[in-house]
C-alpha cells in the first residue's frame, strides 16, 4: 500500500498485450499488475520470450497495452498526449539496456550529456551533472573516450550515468548485466544499485540472475503472461 512517505510512483493495472504471429495471436502479458513505491526496487525474472521487455516497454509508454493501464505518478499514461510523452518520459524515467545503446560518435561525457540536453537542461548543467555522475561511477578518466574505446563494464556504467542524469524517479533496467562477464556483471550491478539508492530513484530490474534479483526489495517472476 502507498504511504505519504513512500508514494506509489509507477503503477500498472491489468496490463495485457498480444502480438500477431502469422494467423495466431501470442498473448505475452495477461493482466499484469504491479506498483512501485518511491525509492524502492523490484525485480522481474522470467524465461526468454516471457514478455519481460514488453512489460518494460509498456511501463515506459513506448508501447501501448491492449488492455489495462499504466500510471506515472497517478497520471494515467493514456491521458498523456503522445506529443508530450517523450518530454515527460525524459524527466521521469531512466533506461539501462542490456546492449548499452551508446551513440558511437559521442564520447562518454557527450553520451550522458545528450540525455540531459534532450530533457531540456542547458549544456552547462547537463555537462556538470554528467561529469559528476561519471566521476561517481569511476569513469572520470574516460570522459573523452568513445564507446569503442571502452570495456563492456565501462559502457554499461556510462549507460547507468545516462539513465540517472535527469534525476528520474524510476529506472527501468532491462538485463543490464546480460552482455557482461560474471565478475564485471557483479561490479556493475553493485554500482547500479548503489547509484539508484544514492539518487533515491526507484527501479524495475529485469534480470535472469537470481543473485541480482534477490538484492531488490521485491521479486517477481513472469510466467505465462502473469506476475507471480
Amino acid at each position, binding site marked *: 500500500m502507498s504511504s505519504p512517505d513512500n508514494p506509489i510512483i509507477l503503477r500498472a493495472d491489468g496490463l495485457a498485450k498480444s502480438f500477431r504471429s502469422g494467423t495466431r495471436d501470442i498473448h505475452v502479458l495477461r493482466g499484469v499488475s504491479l506498483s512501485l513505491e518511491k525509492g524502492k526496487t523490484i525485480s522481474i525474472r522470467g524465461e526468454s520470450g516471457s514478455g519481460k521487455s514488453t512489460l518494460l516497454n509498456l511501463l515506459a509508454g513506448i508501447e501501448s497495452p491492449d488492455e489495462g493501464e499504466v500510471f506515472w505518478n497517478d497520471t494515467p499514461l493514456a491521458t498523456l498526449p503522445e506529443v508530450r510523452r*517523450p*518530454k515527460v*518520459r*525524459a524527466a521521469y524515467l531512466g533506461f539501462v*539496456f542490456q546492449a548499452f545503446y551508446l551513440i558511437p560518435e559521442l564520447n562518454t561525457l557527450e553520451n550522458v550529456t545528450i*540525455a540531459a540536453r*534532450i530533457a531540456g537542461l542547458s549544456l552547462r548543467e547537463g555537462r556538470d551533472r554528467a561529469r559528476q555522475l561519471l566521476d561517481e561511477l569511476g569513469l572520470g578518466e574516460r570522459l573523452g573516450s*568513445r564507446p569503442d574505446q571502452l570495456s563492456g563494464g565501462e559502457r554499461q556504467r556510462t549507460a547507468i550515468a545516462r539513465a540517472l542524469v535527469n534525476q528520474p524517479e524510476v529506472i527501468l533496467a532491462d538485463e543490464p548485466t546480460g552482455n557482461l562477464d560474471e565478475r564485471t556483471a557483479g561490479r556493475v550491478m553493485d554500482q547500479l544499485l548503489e547509484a539508484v539508492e544514492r539518487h533515491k530513484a526507484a527501479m524495475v530490474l529485469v534480470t535472469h540472475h537470481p543473485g541480482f534479483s534477490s538484492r531488490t526489495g521485491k521479486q517477481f517472476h513472469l510466467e505465462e503472461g502473469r506476475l507471480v
Partner: protein
Amino acid sequence: MNLPWYMYLALRQLVPSGRRFGSVFFFLAVLGVALGVAVLVIVQSVMGGFGMVHRERIVDTSGHLDVTDGGYPFQGGFKLADKILEDPDVKQVTPYARGFVMARNRGIPVFPGIYGMAYEEEPVFAVNRYLVSGTMEDLYDDTVFVSRSLASNLGLWVGSTVEVFSPVMIDRLQQNEVVLPREFEVAGVYEIEWNQEFLPGIVCTLRTMQDLYGLGDAVHGIAVRLKDGADEFVVAERLKESLDNRHQVMTWKDRWADFLWVLDLEKTMMLFLNLFIVAVAVFAIAIAQLLTVVRKTREIGLLAVIGGNRRGVLGIYCFQGFFIGLIGAVLGIALAMVCLSLRDPIIQGLSSLTGTRDTLIRYYYFAYLPVKYNAGEIVRIAFMATGLSTLASLLPAWRASRLKPAETLRVEQ
C-alpha cells in the same frame, strides 16, 4: 556551443568526437556537393565572361546607340552628330557609312564588310584599341586598316597594297565604263577576338567610303557612345523626341536582342544541365542517409526512448543535409575560384602545347577564358545546393522520425 541537441548530434554524426576529420560519408557527401557547385560556378562565371566580352565587343564596335534613316544614306550627318552631342549623356559621336566591297591581292578576291568613319579624337568604333600594328594617325583617305583575318587571307601586312572594288563600280561596268579598282595602302592591322562575321574586314575614313559608294556627303548613320552609367534606353527616348521623325534611334541591346537572348539562353541551359551534377550528388546523399537510418535504427529508437521527439529526430537528418550542402557549397565556391584563377595558365599551356591558339580564336573568338563573377549568382547557387541537399535529407529524416522505438530496440544488429 549551446546547440539544440539534434543539431549537436547531427554534427557529431558527421564529425565524431575525438576525430580530427569527419566520417567517410561526410567527406564524400561534401565532396559531391562541392564538385557540383564548383562546376556550376565555373560554368556560370565563364559563360558570364563570354557574355561580358560579347557585350563589350558590341559596344566597342558599334557604340551604345545607332541613329539611322532606316539604313538609307542621308545628308547632314555632321549637323545631326553635333545635335546628338548636345545631349548631356552622350560622350562621343561618329558619322559612318558601311557596306561590302571586294578586296583583292595577288588575284585572290575576298568580300569583306567595310566601315568608313569620321572622327576627330577617338571614334565610337574603338578600332584603335585593337590595332596590332599601325596607329590611328596613319589612317588617311588613301590608307585602310584591315582585320587580321583579312590580312591573313590576302597575305597583307602594313605597307602592302590592297585593291578594292565597290558596288558602284558594277554600275559603271554596266555602262561600259572602264573600271579600275581603288588601291589602298594597308596602314594598320586590327585584331578583335570576336565573331568575324559581325566585324568589318576593312576600316577606312568616311570620305573614302563615301567615294567608294558614291554617297557624296551622305552617311549611313551616327554611332553614339554614352557616358558611363547612362541608360541607353532613356537617352534613346530623349533623342527620339528631339530629332526628326525620319531618324531612327536604336540601342545596341535592341539591335542585338536576338544575339543577347541566345547568350542568356545558353547560360540558362548550361545552368540547367549542370544542375544534374548537383542532383546526382544530392541523390547520393539521400541514398547514403537512408542507409544510415537503417544502420542506426537502434540509436534512433534509443533517442526516442530517452525523450527525443519526432521533430528532433527529423532535425538530425535534415540538419545533416543542410550542413553537407552548406559546407559543400562553400568548398565548391572556393574550389571554383582556385580553378578560375588558374584558367589562363591552363588554357595557354594547353593551346601552346597543341598549337591551337588560332583555332581557338577562329571558332571561339577568344584565346583565353573570360570570366565574370556574379556575386548574386554564386550566392543563389550556394543556396540552391544547400536547399537541395536539405531537401534530399527529408525522406531519410522522415523515415527516421516515423520509426517506432519499441520495434527499433528489438532489431538485431
